[in-house]
């Protein structure tokens, strides 16, 4: 409840600042009043299969497209985190074959991520898979890149200890590397969560036939519809405030004691 109130308050504060901007900016700048934007919600109805531009139809379209974007983002996050962790684990687990995942990560990092969207759109013309795959690849790169970069900071004596006590490489990964890197992995997942909406927006904007909030943004931009853009901005802000603490809450910190009596 408090979270919802907080989101509402912050959204209202942003709306207030916007309204001040609309009041004090020159008329030709085209910044619409908050009320004008709010009354433009019904204009979104034309993106759905509705006969008339009613407020209810507009709200239905916005909710539907928001859910579509959220599902894509969370699906991409899940696939990307699992894939990225597997790739990062391969770097740790396969010392003889380390060169392959290390080079794969280095090569993928060199590609501007947005460039991947065009390629993925060609591979998945209907767009659904392209958006999810794009988010998954970006998240996987973040997670695997973090594991790749932090592998040099693993506690070497502890890895050796596990080996001397009879552990295999799997035990080193499970009992040393994973807990030792847990904080970094958690941090990376939190960053990835914060990037989910920008990533989905980028993918949906380019792949505008796929629907979603990004596709609505593309349409609004195409017709220079500032009230619609403003509504979308408010929705993105609200979703952003909702998604980050929600996913961060799921990734609970490992109870590693840090205090010392010595």
């Amino acid at each position, binding site marked *: 409840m408090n979270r919802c109130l907080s989101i509402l308050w912050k959204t209202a504060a942003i709306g207030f600042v916007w309204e001040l901007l609309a009041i004090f900016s020159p008329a030709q700048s085209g910044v619409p009043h908050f009320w004008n934007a709010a009354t433009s919600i019904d204009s979104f109805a034309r993106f759905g299969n509705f006969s008339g531009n009613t407020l209810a139809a507009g709200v239905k379209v916005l909710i539907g497209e928001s859910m579509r974007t959220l599902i894509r983002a969370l699906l991409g996050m899940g696939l990307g985190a699992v894939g990225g962790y597997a790739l990062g684990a391969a770097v740790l687990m396969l010392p003889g074959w380390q060169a392959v995942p290390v080079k794969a990560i280095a090569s993928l990092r060199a590609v501007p991520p947005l460039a991947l969207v065009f390629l993925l759109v060609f591979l998945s013309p209907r767009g659904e898979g392209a958006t999810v795959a794009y988010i998954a690849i970006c998240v996987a790169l973040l997670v695997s890149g973090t594991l790749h970069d932090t592998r040099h900071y693993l506690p070497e*004596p502890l890895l*050796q200890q596990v080996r001397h*006590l009879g552990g295999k490489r799997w035990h080193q990964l499970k009992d040393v590397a994973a807990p030792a890197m847990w904080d970094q992995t958690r941090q990376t997942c939190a960053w990835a969560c914060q990037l989910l909406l920008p990533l989905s927006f980028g993918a949906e904007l380019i792949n505008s036939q796929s629907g979603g909030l990004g596709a609505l943004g593309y349409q609004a931009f195409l017709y220079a519809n500032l009230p619609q853009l403003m509504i979308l901005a408010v929705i993105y802000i609200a979703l952003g405030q909702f998604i980050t603490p929600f996913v961060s809450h799921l990734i609970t910190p490992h109870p590693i004691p840090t205090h010392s009596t010595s």
Partner: protein
Amino acid sequence: MRGARCRNRNNNRPGEVKPNGTSVVEVRSLAFSRPTGSVRREIFTDFDCDINAGEFVCLVGPSGCGKSTLVGLLSGALMPAKGIINFPNGKPRLGVQFQADALFPWRHIWSNLGYALEIRGHGKEARRAHAARLCELVELDPITFLDRYPGELSGGECRRVSLAMAISANPDLLLIDEATGNLDWLTRRNMQQMLQKLCAERKLTVLAVTHDVEEAVWLSDRILVMQHGGDTKEFIIDLARPRDEATRKNPAFIEKVAQVAAHLSATQQREARP
């Protein structure tokens, strides 16, 4: 004494590897170098030594002469550039106490000490019982310590738990890298006594690195004084066991300490010359 080689008790000549019943490790012509900047620094060029079953061998020497490197090479963490490390009776089970305590900071002490059993698939009760036995061996009260985390222990307690961890898989050869480093005088003495008792009870073969000559003489059967490059001088410590605080006042003990210390300082002075 520069150029003196480490000899074993069986009078094997350097370079000659003879399978015998007593040697646990035979090291021959070992060479190792480390990259320092753009060049490689030679740690050893030609190092030989033997460690016999049931023996307590101490390695002393100036900083950077390769004592810890030798432990790393014997434990398999480092690979030699050349030379051989031979285990005449098959590869022994190794226990290593590292310079930095190698404990899982996110696990309780019982979970740390029971880790060797966890790998072998034993249940929680068996692991706790094993950990309690190990705690008693290193003179820590299981009731007090089993449910603590390593971060909640003092330096001395941590070193004891590290030692218990090193012997938790019942090793044939124990490698100790500065067991009593950074400990106060009293804790150091207690650790030495506990180590002696532990080695006698478990009939452990030990190779220990230390900077403390008195500790080396008190603990060991043999001391290897290492120099940069790998040359070593051996001192046999034939003092009676078990050793106690009275041993430290024994003229033979004091003489041995003086001999080793004199050789060590002569080595350091020689190496310091331009």
